[in-house]
């Protein structure tokens, strides 16, 4: 039972993290290859405060604010560059974050911060908190999607220039997307720190950013349910298939590639095609640069 609780907690945290990226990339079309930096910002903030005896629950908003501040800066940068340039810039941000953390002993340097105290709620209690937060944000995402803000986001994702011509303050909305998405990633980070009880620069590198992006894309970019499912599955898949231990990375990447090759609109797309009576938005073809 104890092990199952651990798995559920891991899943909940991954779902929250993936949904936060979905907000930025899926809803608003701003591709981010460095999202793990915000998970890291939240995790480190929470870890350091917790070790300074700040109660766990108070570290969560602190983590969110810290990550969101960083996110706002990146959001501002996203106003300058677009598409592929944005992708690489966000990747650069990810490396920069890790590179700076690595060098400063204040953050534990290369070695990271170990011995993060327990959340104080016990394993079961902590799991419930994580699930609650994940569900709350999922509900929020669904709500936003049907709201005016979601509509603007989609418009920006589809065609930024046209949206601007329509008189909408595109910059403001992009920034909002970034702030909400990264702040939420920060919350996921706080949970992460108290679940794994250890944070280090290697935990938030390029591989993490790609993994969470993969969760969003495999789920179906923009689809809340798809992302929840994909995140839950992909986060615990490595542990479940440990019997193919030596080949697990090969299996994982093979699966990812097959997904892209045969069903690029993700699991959501697969479901749509299977149950094609449910009306659904058609994935954007990204017609700008081709």
């Amino acid at each position, binding site marked *: 039972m104890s092990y199952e609780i651990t798995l559920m907690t891991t899943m909940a945290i991954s779902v929250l993290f993936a949904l936060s990226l979905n907000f930025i990339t899926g809803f608003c079309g701003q*591709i981010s290859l460095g999202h793990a930096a915000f998970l890291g910002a939240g995790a480190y903030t929470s870890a350091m405060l917790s070790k300074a005896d700040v109660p766990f629950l108070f570290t969560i908003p602190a983590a969110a604010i810290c990550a969101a501040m960083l996110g706002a800066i990146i959001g501002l*940068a996203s106003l*300058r*560059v*677009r*598409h*592929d*340039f944005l*992708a*690489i*810039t966000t*990747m*650069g*941000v990810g*490396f*920069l974050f*890790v*590179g*700076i953390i*690595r*060098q400063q002993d204040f953050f534990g340097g290369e070695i990271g911060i170990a011995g993060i105290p327990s959340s104080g709620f016990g394993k079961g209690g902590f799991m419930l908190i994580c699930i609650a937060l994940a569900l709350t944000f999922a509900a929020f995402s669904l709500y936003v999607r049907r709201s005016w803000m979601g509509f603007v986001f989609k418009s920006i994702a589809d065609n930024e220039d046209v949206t601007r011509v329509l008189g909408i303050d595109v910059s403001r909305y992009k920034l909002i997307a970034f702030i909400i998405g990264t702040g939420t990633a920060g919350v996921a980070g706080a949970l992460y720190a108290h679940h794994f009880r250890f944070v280090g620069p290697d935990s938030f590198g*390029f591989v993490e950013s*790609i993994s969470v*992006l*993969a969760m969003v*894309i495999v789920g179906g*970019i923009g689809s809340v349910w798809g992302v929840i499912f994909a995140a839950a599955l992909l986060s615990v898949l490595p542990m479940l298939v440990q019997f193919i231990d*030596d*080949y697990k*990375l*090969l299996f*994982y*990447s*093979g699966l*990812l*590639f097959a997904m*892209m*090759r045969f069903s*690029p609109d993700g699991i959501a797309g697969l479901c749509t095609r299977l149950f094609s009576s449910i009306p659904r938005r058609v*994935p*954007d*073809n*990204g017609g700008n*640069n*081709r």
Partner: protein
Amino acid sequence: MLYLELFIQGLVQGSIYALIALGLTLVYGLLRILHVAHAALFTLGGYIGVIVTNATGSFTLAMVVAMLVVGLAGMLMYKLAYEPLLSQPPYVSLIASIALFIASEEIFRIAFGPYGLSYQTAPLQGHIELFSGFYLKYAEILVMGLSTILMIALAWLSMQTRTGVAWRATVTDPDMARAFGVKIQNVRYLNFFIGSSFAAAAGVLVALLNNLVEPTMGSVASYKALAIIVLGGLGSIRGTLIASLLLGVLESFGTIYIGHLLDRDAIAFAFLILVLMIRPQGLMGGKL
């Protein structure tokens, strides 16, 4: 003296970056795909170089074989992985490319073992003393020399031959080129062949400099090359070359003098972000 050495090392490293990044920029210019899996071809080149040298004793043969085989592998990669995805949004080919890259690292590890391979008797390990105390390894001279030759060959091909003209036309305006009878498919194959074989050359040279090929040797190259092509201006060959050499030298001095603030990779990206904020299209990029 020290500065001269650092500068030359920067150029050597930059030449390697150039050989790798060139393939990446060629693919981007033609297809607008961020070909992360390119680094896998770099690694493959390194492995072939070591294996053939150890088997036959001839480094030259190894270089030629590596470039040919990997060139073909690149074409295969295009056919199997990218062609089916051309009509999809760009992030699809990006993720597919990344998945391919991870898979290839694993395949190398499973096929060749995790220990890495070394030359039995590494060629060109000697050095010459140019002037008092300043040593230059033969291998380093080869790196700079070979990259220059390959770049010149490429320039000649693209400027002075029919194939080259057809190629440039396709990059500029595919529909017009098609109208003139250029076989787009062949241009794409050529593109991948050349880019991949350059990466293979880089792999063989790196194997020579380090006397070690490992399954994960491409990981740094994969994202650094991306940073370089963005820095140079996506799609601009000249920009890529300048950015590669510039970055090589920057890293060389940077690791010594600001190494306590930022690690090596972070230096590259910090510089990139700085440039992009000032000039969003990169150093030599055209209109956005």
